[in-house]
């Protein structure tokens, strides 16, 4: 009951504080900064949409008059926004309804395609995701050899321009699998070695080589080539989706040969086999969904859960994703997958980092988001309990660029409606 009154008070304060220039102070929360550190009893202020003071409340003296509003959050947890990379959230609504799909364009090489302009800033699905602490998504196209370009988006905004955090952050390339499955989903045949593998890789090399040549000259406008230009000056990241160790090795080799500035591997099921190569080449990974079945019937039952800790111990730089079946709606469970990695050995703050700062670094947005640090965007949330555990995850407040967002959604409305029937 006490809690409820407190919450009511918050609501009032938000109204009053709108437009104020004085900072707002969040006092007493256990702040998980996202960079691997934690402040048990924190004092964190925001002003003009940015974090300002980041301090240990038990050490510093606080002058209440310096703050427009002070939230007392003892016993609660504060986190920087969780970030879901490599997702179709916002460009699809209902899996079975084709009309709601905007993630896969026809054609093989579509680097010029951009998810940005299809992004639905009023996605009903997104509103159920942010209520669990995910406020930022890398909205990513699917399909073809080169699917197109992703953008990093806030899960709130009046329109896509307003919601964009980083426009066209990178190009997504689906590396051919050296092994592939035959048959169709209901009658799967045996998996086979892909005899066309080398031909497909050659096609990629040809395409990227042309793009490299184009980037050095200034010819007539070619939409596809133009969209690839920044891969060679570090302006864009090439995200290569690959799982087999062999395929990742080939991808890295090609990237080096063509002097691509920034390569990230997405998926990386067999990353543990190539950790040395990843470290030598400073390659970051966006990992498959932790809550998945082991790779094969022979794999240890907890293989997907323990992989993360092992990669961490090997020093590999990575973040977690939620790609797979029902990924858009399911991305609200991203933080619980991080929780599972804690159960299987990860340090808690490092697990937080794998869905916050690491993700921001990999997506090239770490200057603005990913951790609670002075000068970064005040994009964060408060949870009543440990947000990595579904048992305690309870997001009570969330901010994007210092502005509180509405945590209501279609599902909550129905709950309220039928609860009080």
């Amino acid at each position, binding site marked *: 009951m006490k809690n409820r009154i407190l919450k009511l008070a918050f609501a009032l304060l938000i109204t009053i504080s709108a437009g104020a220039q004085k900072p707002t102070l969040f006092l007493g929360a256990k702040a998980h900064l996202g960079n691997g550190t934690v402040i048990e009893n924190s004092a964190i202020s925001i002003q003009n949409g940015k974090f300002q003071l980041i301090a240990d409340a038990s050490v510093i003296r606080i002058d209440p008059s310096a703050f427009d509003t002070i939230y007392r959050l003892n016993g609660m947890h504060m986190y920087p926004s969780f970030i879901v990379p490599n997702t179709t959230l916002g460009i699809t609504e209902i899996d079975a309804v084709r009309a709601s799909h905007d993630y896969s364009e026809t054609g093989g090489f579509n680097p010029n395609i951009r998810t940005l302009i299809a992004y639905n800033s009023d996605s009903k699905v997104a509103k159920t995701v942010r209520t669990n602490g995910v406020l930022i998504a890398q909205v990513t196209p699917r399909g073809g050899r080169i699917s197109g370009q992703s953008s990093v988006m806030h899960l709130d905004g009046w329109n896509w321009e307003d919601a964009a955090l980083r426009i066209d952050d990178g190009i997504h390339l689906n590396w051919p699998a050296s092994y592939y499955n035959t048959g169709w989903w*209901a009658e799967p045949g045996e998996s086979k070695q892909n005899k066309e593998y080398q031909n497909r890789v050659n096609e990629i090399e040809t395409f990227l080589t042309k793009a490299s040549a184009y980037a050095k000259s200034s010819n007539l406008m070619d939409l596809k080539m133009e969209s690839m230009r920044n891969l060679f000056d570090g302006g864009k990241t090439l995200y290569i989706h690959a799982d087999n*160790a062999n395929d990742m090795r080939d991808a890295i080799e090609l990237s080096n040969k063509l002097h691509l500035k920034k390569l990230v591997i997405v998926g990386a099921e067999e990353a543990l086999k190539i950790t040395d190569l990843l470290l030598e080449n400073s390659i970051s990974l966006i990992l498959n969904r932790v809550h998945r079945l082991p790779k094969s019937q022979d794999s240890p039952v907890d293989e997907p859960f323990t992989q993360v800790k092992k990669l961490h111990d090997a020093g590999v730089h990575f973040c977690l994703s939620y790609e797979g079946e029902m990924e858009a709606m399911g991305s609200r469970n991203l933080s619980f997958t991080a929780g599972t990695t804690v159960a299987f050995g990860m340090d808690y703050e490092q697990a937080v980092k794998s869905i916050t700062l690491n993700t921001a670094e990999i997506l090239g947005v770490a200057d603005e988001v990913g951790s609670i640090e002075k000068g970064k965007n005040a994009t964060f949330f408060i949870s009543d309990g440990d947000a990595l555990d579904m048992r305690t995850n*309870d997001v009570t407040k969330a901010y994007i660029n210092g502005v509180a967002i509405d945590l209501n959604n279609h599902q909550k409305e*129905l*709950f309220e409606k039928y609860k009080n029937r």
Partner: protein
Amino acid sequence: MKTIRIVVLLFITQSVLAQETFPVNGVSNNFEPIYAFTNAHIVLNPTTEIPNGTLLIKGNEIIALDSNLNIPKGAIIKNVAGDYIYPSFIDLYSDYGLKEVQRGKYNYRPQYDSKKAGAYHWNEAIHPEINASTEWSKYNSEAKPYLENGFGAVLSHAKDGIARGTATFVALSDKTDNENILIKDAAAFYSFKKGVSKQKNPSSLMGSIALLRQTYFDAEWYELQNSQTNLSYNSFINQQELPQFFAINDELDYNRVYKIAEEFEIDYILKGSGKEFLRIDEVANTEFPIIIPINFPSSYDVSNAETTEWISLQNLKTWESAPYNPAILAKNGIEFCITAADLKDSKSFLKNLRLAITKGLNKGDALAALTTTPATLIDINDKVGSLAKGKLANFFIASKDIFENGIIYENWTLGEKHIINKKQEIDVRGYYTFIANEFENNLVAIEGINAKPKLTLFHLDSIALTTSLSGNNITFSNPNGTFRASGKYNNGHIIGNYQDSLGNYHSFRMQRDSLFENKEDQFELVIDNNTPSVWFPNKAHGFADTPQYKNVLFKNATVWTNEEIGILQNTDVAISEGKIIAIGTLLNPNDYFSEEEYQTIDASNYNLTCGVIDEHSHIAISRGVNEGSQAVTAEVSIADVINPNDHNIYRQLAGGTVASQLLHGSANPIGGQAAMVKLRWGANAEEMKIAGADGFIKFALGENVKQSNWGNFERIRFPQTRMGVEQVFYDAFYRAKAYQKQWEDYNNLSQKEKRNTTPPREDIELNTLVEILNSERFVTCHSYIQSEINMLMHVADSMGFTVNTFTHILEGYKVADKMQEHGVGGSTFSDWWAYKFEVNDAIPYNATLLNNAGVITAINSDDAEMGRRLNQEAAKAVKYGGTSEEDAWKMVTLNPAKLLHLDAHMGSIKVGKDADIVLWTNNPLSIYAKVVQTYVDGKLMFDVEVDKELRARDKAERMRIIKLMSEDKNGGKKRKPQPTKEILYHCDTEHEE
């Protein structure tokens, strides 16, 4: 059986006469000499041999055979000294001489009705009217591979469909078709595969089983009625007198066929998979004779360590064990035949047969499997299968023991010779002195295989020359053509001439100084009796030994009882003989166990709960989860197709799940019957079932049953709207009521009236629906939208039964009051939505709202991955709706137990209940909780420490077999490593059997 014998004899006599009636263009020439094969090592049958004997044949018949025979005058004598004569082999699983059944053109639109014209069965896969003898004609190029491998006669049928029709038994001679057919209708064949039929039904293994069972019932009824004609049933009924052959797919099918055999009292002969060793006890249990292929898997290319990881341990173990399969069958006293079917290359038949011998198959057993056993099974052992006077002249002559390294020279069928390998009568090999003008006294070696010798003339080269031998003519030349010689061999001399580089001829003479030491004769049979171990199942994590009951005292645990006493701290729990026997503090083990026979586990850091129960699962199912080919398929049952080999069983045990309802999918309004299983890893399909559990059936509503997401071609099957769905239910239940009445009326007749009345047709679909009406079977209904949920409750109310469970039930919260009133429970997803249009209003608060309304509420998986962490899904009811932790925990344990009528034995920690126990490292609702141990019926099924040992064992086993494979010489062409594809079923998975 007697009648068949008569038919056979008549037929043979007739065929001989028939030939006489064939007009001859020219002068008739039908002199049949007597052939005498002398000095042969004659193998009469698997138990008798004549080391030096004579065989006399005339026409197509053996007229005499003994060690000491007077050879009649005028007989053609063939001295086959040293050669072996065997009765020719018999293959019972062949389609020789029959045209391959063609698959029709692919049609995007589904076909629900039969397109076959005529008064036949409604299902195109049931075609007992197909008669092989009317389609059969000899086909020399197809006979050749059989003859090359020693076969003389085969049982041929069209390998297509479920009731396939009859087979004809034919000889492989060049004589007329009339003479080759030895038994016109020799057997009837069945299988679970529908074959080329394009008709939708059946689309699953369980559908095939149900269709076949219904066919047996229909035939029984058909015999008694006279209202209609069905040619398929006429044939079906007639052929019941013949030997009944059933072709199965894998080792799990043995039990499936066995159940049908028991039900309809049929003695089948089973065509197996060659992997019987995987479940040898179940195979033996059927007591059926079987036919096995010897298509042993070839070895993989294991040179690349990384790609070798794609090969499952299951495939590696199968590769190692498969060649032992025939020997294992023999050791287990199982009567079996060997077929050449399923081989990719007929040349590997003898090679694999010999491999099986080296793996412990006794030669007599091998010969029996190829001769006497098949002959006896189709009751023609008086004509073929062994060598004896009066039997058909079907035999082959080989250089040596056929099970070692013998080469087949001639294969005689119906007294007619086929030359397989020309016998090299003379042996030219040896070491000679070469004498010619040009070069004197040069050494020549002729070595190698007798029929294909290699000559080396050391004056020219130390490498062998190109050599060819035909009869006693030998030619040899060097690669650049400057020396080309030819000569004739006679009595240790070769005389001939050669041409030099200038084109001049020179004569030469060669004289043998010493003989070649023949290594072919040094064959040594090495028998490997180290039969590899078989795990249950025979794959990674499989158990080598069956887990046994454990007596355990868990000390000081936090115990989630699910009973009124709630969660107890520092509490002891004792289990014995599969049951919970005590709960309390400071339990004294001496009160429960005698010394030394129990184990104490310090559980002070653990939470102890009962096992998780999944109300809605599709793991551990073979070949199809949906029989969606009709709107109503109550006749099919998941209980027929349980797959105990599914590794998801072990994965889910590692997540604390101990029992599941294996449900039919949601492709149609009235789906199939469910199976209630405990996840007893290592057990067989029958052992997995929960004894005494109530029967359930899957119903479904909404987008799946109206085929909304099946694409634009699927607009044919009724229903296509929710409106139609309602009518399907009413129609089904009214039909069931009428059917029930029919039987009641019939059963009320006096004995006398019954004799004059055709009984109603036994209908397994309607039987199931009647069970529902009588509350003897209970409905679990896949459902989403409130309108349809409401509708089904109305249907049930008006029909006088109660829906037991709505599963998924995502809008249940909108009609929770009505559900409570009806008395139906709900089993829902914790937080799934947005995957279909009908889940727009699915909310993660649903479980809480249902629970609060007094509806028994469970949370289920419907997903192999989620099924191993249902504890986390339960926690979402705490997160979203604010349900208490105890109530949330019940949603994946006690509540599903109640919904499945299992709560008397399961679902809580209570004295007397099953010892399905899970130890967790943490509060089981926490993401940080890991399973330490899972017990099912007091047997330890998962243990983190044992799991570590299994991983080490699996790795060692893998490396051991890879080493064997690297050394393998038998493999021939090596296979590329391939990953094993996983099949994961959801509600809406369609699959073709």
